[in-house]
């Protein structure tokens, strides 16, 4: 009886480990740890990461390489959208976000502040940003030695901005960011970003008795 119970427990443990292993590393679009944001952070949902080799190595053989690069790339993209939209302390002063851009792209990003961020006047205009969420897909180009050399991060970010004027704006940022490693950090050297913000439903009135 005891032996049977032990066997059942062991099978249960193995099943849990297999399921956890599949969720973490299995399938065509493996997840990367850190997919969920902690307090005061923002984290994209990683929808996929894949390698694009210039050699005849099959992309499937470079899953681990792509996944490793994907960790750093996701960190950069999480940080960018946290600083550019979610972090109220950064509103109006996006220096920390622009630090994630490399070389000439940094100066250009600063001039594109109103497309790449919540806006230069966000501190004055926005009361709160609610429900930020986003999807991220990563493609990693590998070199002659099958090592990552550059990557494209494709993102879609959504959030509701509550204005201080009692209006709501649905923020949509869709972009393709090209990244390369600079001093061990994945930085953005090229980008193509679209904003398609729409007037949202007016917030329900508060404190007004009927």
């Amino acid at each position, binding site marked *: 009886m005891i032996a049977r119970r032990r066997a059942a427990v062991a099978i249960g443990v193995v099943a849990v480990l297999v399921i956890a292993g599949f969720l973490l590393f299995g399938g065509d679009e493996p997840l990367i740890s850190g997919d969920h944001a902690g307090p005061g952070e923002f984290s994209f949902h990683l929808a996929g990461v894949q390698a694009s080799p210039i050699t005849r190595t099959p992309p499937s053989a470079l899953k681990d390489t792509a996944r490793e690069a994907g960790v750093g790339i996701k960190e950069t993209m999480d940080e960018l959208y946290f600083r550019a939209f979610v972090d109220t302390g950064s509103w109006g002063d996006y220096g920390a976000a622009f630090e994630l851009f490399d070389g000439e792209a940094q100066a250009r990003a600063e001039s594109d502040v109103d497309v790449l961020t919540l806006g230069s*006047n966000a501190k004055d205009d926005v009361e709160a940003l609610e429900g930020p969420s986003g999807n991220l897909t990563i493609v990693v*180009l590998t070199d002659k030695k099958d090592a990552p050399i550059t990557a494209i991060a494709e993102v879609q970010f959504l959030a509701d901005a509550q204005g201080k004027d009692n*209006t709501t704006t649905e923020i949509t940022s869709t972009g393709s960011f090209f990244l390369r490693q600079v001093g061990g950090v994945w930085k953005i050297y090229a980008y193509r970003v679209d*904003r398609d913000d729409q007037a949202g439903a007016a917030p329900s009135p508060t404190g007004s008795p009927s």
Partner: protein
Amino acid sequence: MRRRRLVAVLASLAAGVAGLGVATLQATPAASVPLLQIGKAHAEFGPSLQGDKPIFILILGSDSRPGTPLEEGLCDSIHILGINPEAKRATLVGIPRDSYVPLSTGGTNKINVALAQGGAKGMVATVEDLTGVTFDYYVITGFDGMKRIFDALGGLKIDVPYSFQGHEGSSFPEGKQTFTGAQALEFSRTRKTLTHGDFDRSMNQGRLLLAALAQFKAEFRKDPTALFEWIAVGMRNVATDVPLNELLTLAFASSDLRPKRITNLVAVGSIGTAGGASIVNLPSPNPVFEDVAADGYVLPKDIPAENAPSG
């Protein structure tokens, strides 16, 4: 953001002047104009080539058969690509493979043997001596590589300027069509059925390169990941000394080049014979080579009539 608010205010003012009246404008509550921008906006940036120094790339097509190194073949296709970053202009100059020129490896022969005799370095040196151009990079592909490139990319969209029959029996009707890899190869190799033979073939090879550029631009515009697909497919099927980082910059820069600012021409010469073989004697000095070597491009108005054969 302030500018957007100003635009909103000006729009309101315009509406007021148009008939709504000042009273209506004043009655509009401030809260009805959202502080945040509503609508679409776009921003983009990519690395570009800098400076006024032209960039030159020697593009070669080797006839080496499968399993044979590209550098051991004869050159079936020889093109100078000049890019002037400041002028945002580029030029392709085709050099007929039968051009009878001094080779860097010694002696005078058809230029197409320079690759087999001296490898890529020998070919580059031969073309440099002939044209006065100093190359930054070279790219070589072969028959199989070319077929694989266009097949992997889903075909090549091209506008054929006039109808002709390919040397392997394919028909190439005038107009827009999509080539398979094999059709692209036949299009670029056909010579005998063309009015000006080797000159027209070289011109067609330039058309193929321009069509590929136009297709890359269109696909990259639609989907940025196309950049990696093109680079990956290309690098798997060519031999080149272009570093990958430089190739990325070139790809971004080429996506910024307008087709109308790219000139396609052929270095033509007189037909002759040497040792019983048909050859092309190029003029020396050659105004086309001098023009492209000077700044990386030739303006259409400066192309001598004989350098734009058929089409």
